[in-house]
């Protein structure tokens, strides 16, 4: 933005008079058509308010662009030379140049009086889908826009994959321009920001920026990973002791075999061994109590880091892993809740059932605390800690997803552990780099500091699972193998 000060024009609202048509994906990237419908400048049309999408706009001050500077000087010089040297040709050219000098002074860059509509081909896509966005802008002012450039305000969490979200055109009163582009959908609730319209006068010597708002929202809720293959026993086991029962299904785990004693239920006999060796033995099973687990995702601003600037952030990795864990634990009969360590509030109390599964999925996808880009609000650590502690059920375990890029999560984990909750830290590694020798000192130092934090946590008796190159499931499986019961 230039140094132009904000000049709030009375927030003008322009009602788009046409009903909301569905514009199917034009193969044509842009088309300029003449609006044949009457250029309705009706404002605040009460009757059609439901269908109209008013376009609010806000114009900044016009400024000089610096084009055509010195033309008059050149013209005068040429005329003077021509007169002094008695050359009519030069004088003529100089005089014609004066015309351009006048042209440069004429006209002003007006506010862009546009009615803008935006269509999204799929408002609830799956992650990775290409979604076509079509924007239509109509000149509802009386004067023509001789030099108009439009840039759409694509949400910061979305990446455009086809075509720039821009167009340059000239619109007379009532004419409209349509342009479209495609974005790749990614997790989250995305809202389009302001469309910016740059208008210049005919000569290009004055320029003005106008910001127009047309709210549009796109929500992408990923399916949570099946999680069935996630070996989570080790994470949430609370041993209840050996209880030979005939309760079957999930929540019951093989523990050992012992010699058959008269009276053991036939259901618990190890028939495989009987078939192999003829001996009778009884399976001992351990019933596990359903655990109450809270998945805590570190979504403060420092956690939005990645190994490369264009890769998914650690928060994305945490959310994805949390999704898999959520599904797996719910399937295992545990009660699971979701929370976020973030300036914005996020708390889903532990629960179970299909409704809860749906709520969990939505929370992980669209809660503002877990947005794909960090919020700008401040994070008040003590306030958050107090509130979280109040909400956390006394017997809840905490699975803490954090990249461990600073010491705050270490402190938080240790405090939660001290309050009596079983804490496990699951940490995606944002410091991995292609080859150790080409990594910068900063990155290596960050890796060293992170490793130290992991060691500190482990030294305090808190379990840490980290993953980076390997998949999350493999890391969890590896961890299970090492933890004793």
């Amino acid at each position, binding site marked *: 933005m230039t140094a132009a000060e904000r000049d709030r024009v009375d927030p003008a609202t322009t009602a788009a008079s046409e009903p909301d048509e569905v514009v199917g994906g034009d193969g044509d990237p*842009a088309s*300029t058509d003449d609006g044949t419908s009457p250029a309705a400048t009706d404002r605040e049309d009460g009757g059609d308010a439901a269908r109209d999408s008013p376009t609010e706009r806000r114009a900044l001050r016009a400024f000089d662009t610096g*084009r055509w500077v010195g033309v008059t000087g050149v013209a*005068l010089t*040429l*005329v003077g*030379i*021509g*007169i002094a*040297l008695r*050359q*009519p*040709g*030069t004088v*003529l*050219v100089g*005089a*014609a*140049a004066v*015309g*351009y000098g006048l*042209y440069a002074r004429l006209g002003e860059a007006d506010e862009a009086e546009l009615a803008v509509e935006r269509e999204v081909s799929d408002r609830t896509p799956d*992650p990775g889908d290409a979604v076509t966005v079509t924007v239509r802008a109509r000149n509802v002012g009386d004067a023509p826009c*001789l*030099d108009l*450039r439009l*840039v759409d305000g694509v949400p910061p969490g979305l*990446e455009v*994959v086809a*075509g*720039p979200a*821009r*167009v*340059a*055109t*000239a619109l007379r009163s009532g004419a409209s321009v349509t342009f479209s582009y495609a974005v790749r959908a990614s997790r989250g609730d995305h809202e389009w920001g302001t469309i910016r319209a740059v208008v210049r006068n*005919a*000569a*290009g010597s004055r320029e003005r920026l106008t910001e127009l708002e047309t709210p549009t929202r796109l929500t992408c809720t990923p399916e949570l*990973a099946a999680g069935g293959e996630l070996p989570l026993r080790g994470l949430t086991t609370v041993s209840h002791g050996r209880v030979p029962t005939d309760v079957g299904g999930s929540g019951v785990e093989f523990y050992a075999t012992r010699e058959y004693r008269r009276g053991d239920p036939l259901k618990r006999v190890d028939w495989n061994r009987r078939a192999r060796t003829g001996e009778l033995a009884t399976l001992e099973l351990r019933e596990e109590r359903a655990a109450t687990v809270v998945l805590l995702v570190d979504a403060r601003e420092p956690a939005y880091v990645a*190994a*490369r600037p*264009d*890769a*998914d952030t650690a928060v994305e*990795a945490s959310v*994805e892993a949390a*999704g*898999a864990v959520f599904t797996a634990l719910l399937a295992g009969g545990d009660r699971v809740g979701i929370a976020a360590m973030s300036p914005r509030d996020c708390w889903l109390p532990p629960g179970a059932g299909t409704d809860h599964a749906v709520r969990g999925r939505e929370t992980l996808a669209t809660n503002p605390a877990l947005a794909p880009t960090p919020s700008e609000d401040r994070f008040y650590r003590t306030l958050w800690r107090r509130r979280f502690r109040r909400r956390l059920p006394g017997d809840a375990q905490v699975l803490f997803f954090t990249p461990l890029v600073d010491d705050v999560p270490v402190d938080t984990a240790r405090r939660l552990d001290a309050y009596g909750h079983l804490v496990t830290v699951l940490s*995606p*590694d*944002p410091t*991995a*780099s*292609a080859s150790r020798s080409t990594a910068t000192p900063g990155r290596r130092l960050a890796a060293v500091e992170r490793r130290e934090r992991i060691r500190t946590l482990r030294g305090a008796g808190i379990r840490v699972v980290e*993953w*980076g*190159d390997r*998949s*999350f499931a493999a890391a969890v499986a590896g961890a299970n193998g090492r933890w004793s019961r």
Partner: protein
Amino acid sequence: MSANGSRGIEPGGERGPETSEGRGSGADEDRERDTRPPLLAVVASLVAATVATAAAVVAAPTGGAVVGASIVCLAAGSLLGSARVLSWGAAAGIGGIALAAEFGGGAEPLLVAGVALAVAWDVADHGLSIGRQVGREARTRRNVAVHAGTSLLVGTLSAVVVYGTYVVAAGGQPIAALALLCFGGVVLASAFR
């Protein structure tokens, strides 16, 4: 990580086996907007510059050659995205016209050359600004065409007025009139500084 494609913390630069699912993350993410001026603007400016050169050559070959240098400068300026180089092109053109006038060039071809040069510079410079703000891949044809058209219109109008005055005044004492006009122009310019 989950089977959902290759999202996740990857080692920088290396692609693990999960990325084979055609996500092509590197290629898409590194896509840079093409900020070069639109082709129509570049072509139009070069065509106008060629017309200017031709007219100047008709007027006087030496001057014409200098104006020809402006073609190179305008092309280079569009390629490099430098408004300064474009200004050099315009300066070269003006110098060439003055030179051609010095070597006895006729008024008419010089006028044509002058207007064509102004249009050439204007369209090229406009193209730079469009490229920077919108880019080459977007739809810009109408915008460039309208701008070129208005520029040409203004130039033609000025040339007609000036030439008309010249024709009407020719044969008399045009110098006095011109001197008065020049004086008036200087004073006006100072007034509107």
